[in-house]
């Protein structure tokens, strides 16, 4: 068989640099699967329910988790509210935070990790204190949400304290394109608004006050009459 000849510049020919072939995203060790080498350490025993006596838990967090547990017939129902509380306390669901909640709830950390990784709002990696969710679902994208998301990401690129994410439908297509800034819905957004959002967040002001959803009247003209 004939070998594939070397290129004229002497570099080796590879299948992957044929023209216009879309690049396959590669992760560690050339794998196509992200995080495949992020395996569990099989030499360790599985984590058991952490002991509350040896796991220090901040008083406020403990009270919130216990209050959540008391509201349900089954204490495990409090998993999401408890993880929300931990995320507020630490900024993200860190392994330590999950251990603490697990100790109070008397469940294994693995159980809570399985819950935390399922839901978009619970984050198991460090993030900034301020969340900006830009909706890029269909109704918003029809009105230019993808450009807003790019502009927003660029505007906050240097801000460690602001995490910008594209999000699935946030349920506010009437103000499309929109974003949820620390839970406050704002829209319809224009390109110029992204700098305002960053400035307002850094200054600790109300974000984009005149575009907040809560100030918006009902669109139905008949709702005001009668």
């Amino acid at each position, binding site marked *: *068989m*004939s070998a*594939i*000849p070397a*290129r*004229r*510049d002497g570099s080796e020919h590879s299948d992957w*640099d*044929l*023209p*216009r072939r*879309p690049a396959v995203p590669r992760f560690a060790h050339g794998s196509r699967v992200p995080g495949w080498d992020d395996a569990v350490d099989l030499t360790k025993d599985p984590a058991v329910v952490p002991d509350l006596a040896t796991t220090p838990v901040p008083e406020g967090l403990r009270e919130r988790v216990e209050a959540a547990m008391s509201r*349900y*017939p*089954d204490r*495990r*129902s*409090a*998993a*999401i*509210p408890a*993880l*929300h509380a931990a995320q507020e306390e630490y900024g993200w669901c860190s392994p330590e935070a999950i251990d603490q909640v697990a100790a109070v709830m008397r469940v294994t950390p693995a159980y809570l990790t*399985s*819950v935390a990784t*399922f*839901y*978009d*709002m*619970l984050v198991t990696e460090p993030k900034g204190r301020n969340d900006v*969710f830009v909706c890029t*679902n*269909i*109704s918003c*994208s*029809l*009105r230019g949400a993808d450009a807003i998301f790019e502009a927003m990401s660029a505007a906050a690129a240097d801000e460690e304290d602001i995490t910008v994410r594209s*999000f*699935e*439908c*946030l*349920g*506010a*297509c*009437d*103000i*499309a394109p929109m974003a*949820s800034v620390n*839970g*406050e*819905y704002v829209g319809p957004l224009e390109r110029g608004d992204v700098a305002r959002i960053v400035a307002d967040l850094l200054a600790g002001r109300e974000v984009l006050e005149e575009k907040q*959803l*809560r100030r918006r009247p*009902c*669109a*139905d003209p*008949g*709702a*005001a009459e*009668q």
Partner: protein
Amino acid sequence: MRKILFDRIDEPGLNTLAVYERRGGYDALRKALGMSREEVLQELLASAIRGRGGAGFQMGKKVSFLPKGEMDKYLVCNADESEPGTFKDRELMQKSPHMLIEGIVIAAYAGGIDRAFLYIRGEYEYQADILDAALEEARAAGYIGERILGSELTLSLVLHRGAGAYICGEETGLLDSLEGKRGNPRLKPPFPAVEGLYDGPTLINNVETLATVPHIIAMGGAEYAKIGTETSTGTKLVSVSGDVKRPGNYEVELGIPSREIIYDLAGGPPDGRTVKLWFPGGSSAPVLTAEDLDVPYDFDSMAKAGSMLGSGAIIVVDDSHPVLEVAIKLAKFYAHESCGKCVPCREGTNWTVKMLERIESGEATPMDLDIMASVQEQIIGNCLCVLGDAMAMPIGSIIEKYRPELEAHIEAARERANSGALEDVVALGVADDYAGPMPVH
């Protein structure tokens, strides 16, 4: 046009008990508690109100399926409104939370239920805060708690905030999530009315359905059934979004022509544009075209037109958007939100995205459209829940109705991708002495 849910919805302070009571709030609860459980159930049955969450199942029937007798029964209000294009419950909860609470208490009375949960999506933080405050007021006033207004009825109502997962709007996924697990749907049957939350009989209803209950009791079920059409009674909140001049929530009588909603209420597409396609019931509904604009907006007419009323969310796409752009957005959403429990949905949504992206990058052939259509067929009906179907139905209808446009797109993208290919090969310096891999001898 008659407003029931949106009647003076913007009145300042309507989210407080004082204003709500001044407008006659909780009178329907008093009236219901003066009737027997059976009579309240009869009113709900007579109203023939169909669920406003998407499936359109008659609410009264759902209540009547609950087993009778003393046992732990639950009511869950589904406020995990995440169907793309839907935002009606948000406005209702934010502006008139007590209407919903009153409806929950009456429905619990009809079903003989003493524990209720309100599962609201985690993103609705402001609305959840408003509901929390309203619940506090209602508890203090004795509308929730033990022996409500001196009657037999005891009810606890807990607000539960979700954490962002579309699948938790599916009723059994919601139940798992409420039990503190990952929100994976369950096998049905048993249906929640028999075995639901904590294995007890559970009544699950959408916010809008429950918020209508006080009005049904106040005016009488038979009177309510006179509004709308025979099989789709009452008024419906419609969320109109996308390429329209006045997006927003509108309350309409079921059965009015869809054109009236899109053009008269929402203002129609921007000037100089025309409606290309529209989703009548959220992004999960098969798409309709401009020719279907005169279809009456009710459950049965939409089904006859080959689509569905769903959650009552109209998304309008005008002629400036390629249909491929819409299809990719849709498929990516469902691929992201698939919980991964059933293979047809997990793999089907994923591969549909890949195939659509091949069309975009110019690697597809018209045969890919057939493969994609067959993937959609193999998803429908083969999973525990309808999330996969919710992608397969609109994508399938887009392939069917916009095949010429997609084929043109495939051709154009292929030409774009191939133009200059020869120059590239020459530039690589292999064209003159290398003619591709040789057969192995």
